[in-house]
């Protein structure tokens, strides 16, 4: 965990309101693991005040990438930064996905909804290099919400795309598509990141089939490094439910640890 006050923006791509930034930060890149995140200072001025969390989307040598969607002031100001400017970032933070040699020759499925696809690229890089066969389910509202399609395809990763409106791929929710294909794929492990409702369904489906699964959770974060107690969610630990700091002990948790919030009436 380090602070890099001057991570240079060396690459920038954009599709409508989705952005991909490449940042030069050898310190953070050398330590980064899939599922970990960074905290980005958006402005030197007091608005937005707090840093914003973003998953590490990939790493290559000295560089890391972040992939984000504009959802408010912070992400909107961030999207206006240009190549050659630098960002003040903290990272790598949190605990990531389980990876490693044990996945060699195994089929692994990762499910990403919307901007939740962000950490799954790094995960698939890592899993592929340890010899796993990685399949990605990528869901969005419409074809415009699948900007990373080509990036995965270029790497030769098998993609299962879905859109809510049917404008590309399977018509419907990505969790339904996942359910329909699950039997055929028979994965050893499932990873997911996206809207809570989507992750909840993936949790149900994998539980029924008794397949291990891990999920990357989101929470409003004050600091990102365990100092504010702002980001807690209820997590099962040693048969007890405890308010747990997502930034420190997560953001990735196994299905057995997560207590999903009740649906709003």
């Amino acid at each position, binding site marked *: 965990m380090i602070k890099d006050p001057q991570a240079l923006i060396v690459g920038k791509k954009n599709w409508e309101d989705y952005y991909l930034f490449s940042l030069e930060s050898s310190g953070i890149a050398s330590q980064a693991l899939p599922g970990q995140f960074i905290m980005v*200072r958006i402005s030197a001025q*007091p608005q937005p005040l707090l840093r914003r969390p973003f998953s590490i989307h990939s790493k290559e040598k000295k560089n890391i990438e972040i992939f984000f969607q504009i959802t408010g002031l912070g992400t909107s100001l961030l999207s206006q930064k240009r190549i050659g400017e630098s960002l003040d970032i903290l990272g790598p933070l949190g605990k990531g996905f389980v990876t490693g040699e044990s996945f060699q020759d195994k089929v692994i499925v990762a499910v990403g909804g919307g901007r939740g696809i962000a950490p799954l690229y790094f995960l698939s890089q890592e899993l592929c290099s340890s010899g796993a066969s990685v399949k990605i389910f990528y869901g969005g509202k419409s074809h415009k919400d699948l900007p990373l399609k080509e990036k995965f395809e270029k790497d030769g990763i098998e993609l299962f795309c879905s859109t809510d409106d049917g404008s590309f791929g399977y018509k419907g929710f990505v969790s339904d598509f996942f359910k329909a294909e699950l039997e055929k794929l028979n994965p050893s492990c499932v990873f997911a990141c996206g809207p809570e409702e989507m992750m909840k369904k993936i949790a149900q489906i994998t539980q029924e089939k008794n397949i291990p699964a891990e999920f990357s959770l989101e929470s409003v974060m004050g600091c990102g490094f365990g100092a*504010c107690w702002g980001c807690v969610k209820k997590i099962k630990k040693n048969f007890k439910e405890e308010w747990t700091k997502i930034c420190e002990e997560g953001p990735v948790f196994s299905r057995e640890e997560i207590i999903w919030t009740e649906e709003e009436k």
Partner: protein
Amino acid sequence: MTDLSVDLGFIKLKNPVLAASGTFGYGLEFSPFIDLNKLGGFVVKGLYFSPRPGNLPPRLVETPGGLINAIGLPGVGVERFSEEILPELRKYNTAIIVNVCGESNEEYASVVERLNKEEGISAYELNISCPNVKKDGLCPALSPKDTFSVVSLVKKSSSRPVITKLSPNVTDIVEIALSAQEAGTDALSLVNTFLAMAVDIETKKPILANTFGGLSGPAIKPLVLRMVYQVVSHVKIPVIGIGGISSGKDALEYLITGAKAVEVGTANFIDPETTVKIIEELKTYCQKKGIDKIETIIGTLKV
């Protein structure tokens, strides 16, 4: 060389910059980013006697220039703090101040009595002003009588200096400050957070699960400067300024107004190096102005 040390009477700090409770974890969270030995000191997260879970999330919401929190004082409790955390903190050469909480006057006293047995604590900061634990932000610091009774009880139990942390959510903060002084507190720290709320226009619900929270950050600085000014003109004991400090300039405004030291809060989240940077900026200011001892600028406000 500039002398940045300040003497609070009951402790001498190597410089006037402390980290504020609840924004600095138990201190150790910041060791990857800064050398804790450089600080005047730090105040650890509020401690009750037993471990506590805190409030339901969402616990945080950002507002222009501010942060509203309703953390609700979760923590490890005094036993685990003494056994597991304090031994780590003793390795540092800086003032360690423990922020003491209680549901009742007796609980404040029992926390202090347990901690009296432990080495390596410079002072207690009595948190009688957290707006997030009782309904409607109720806390002892809202009433001169309640302030007097908790401070005098804790003073009796304590083998160490006691700093009383006041709430800004009162009509007349001087009245509360005077009653803490009368009860024997060694110093005052001003202030805890401002009772606040935020609304979601889509769901028509309060954004925080707790409805209310406490506002901190740059937005509150002018309000707190005014309170520090009012209080230092009426009390004899040292005052520590807390609210919206994120630069050397902010810290200087408090020192000039009459605070003997400052605590840095929310700014630690935004830049974990803030405290150390402020110390550097104070040094630079003194050198530029030819000031040998930073203490000579305390309370030099010309009104």
